[in-house]
């Protein structure tokens, strides 16, 4: 699965994008965030407060309990500040 990071999530993780092999048992957006949080210091800082990290699945806003099933691209980012 392709994972993208934006803004300070990107800065903390230290990369813009990567391919992740999603392990068995990781079925929701929240599961994936928790899994990523364990991948190292940068990830731990990016996901330290999961409530402030938003996600999109295949370019649509997703909630923590949204199932990953079938998605090809997931993105994590802070609350949006455009406009």
């Amino acid at each position, binding site marked *: 699965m392709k994972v*993208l990071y*934006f*803004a*300070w999530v990107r800065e903390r993780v230290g990369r813009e994008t990567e391919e992740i092999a999603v392990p068995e048992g990781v079925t929701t957006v929240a599961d994936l965030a928790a899994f990523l949080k364990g991948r190292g210091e940068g990830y731990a800082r990016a996901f330290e407060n999961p409530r402030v990290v938003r996600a*999109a699945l295949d*370019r*649509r*806003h997703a909630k923590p309990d949204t199932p990953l099933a079938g998605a090809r691209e997931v*993105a994590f*980012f*802070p*609350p*949006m*500040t*455009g*406009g």
Partner: protein
Amino acid sequence: MFTVRIQSEDFDAAAEAAALTRGRTDVGAVVTFTGLCRAQDATGGAPLIALTLEHYPGMAEEEIRRLIEEAGTRWPLLGATVIHRYGRMVPGDNIVLVVTTSSHRGAAFAAAEFLMDWLKTRAPFWKLEEREDASSWVAAKDTDDEAAERWG
């Protein structure tokens, strides 16, 4: 006539408005909203040198298109154009343009305001502020969430 553009170049609000009215006699109301980069926010502090807007390519356009389509189901729009810039902007620069047209003013005003409120909370853009003393990501505002939520 719904148009979305995500671009680094500046835009011409007048040309966009003209494109939605040219040769038509059914448009009674055109509302344009232009959002600009300001030097000073309400909290004071060091003046802003620049804003850098990061976006999620692909999703930004798709999400704004979904918002316009939602607006089109709520109000009898004849046209809508949204242009959102990305990249580095200095105070005084244009950031975002919304143009709505309708037969009547109520629909054009409401749709433009709806689009701006939802853009702020749903369009995948993030602002990095560059000030004399530091650079920092802009935090999302509760007031923006409240503005969006009033549309139910």
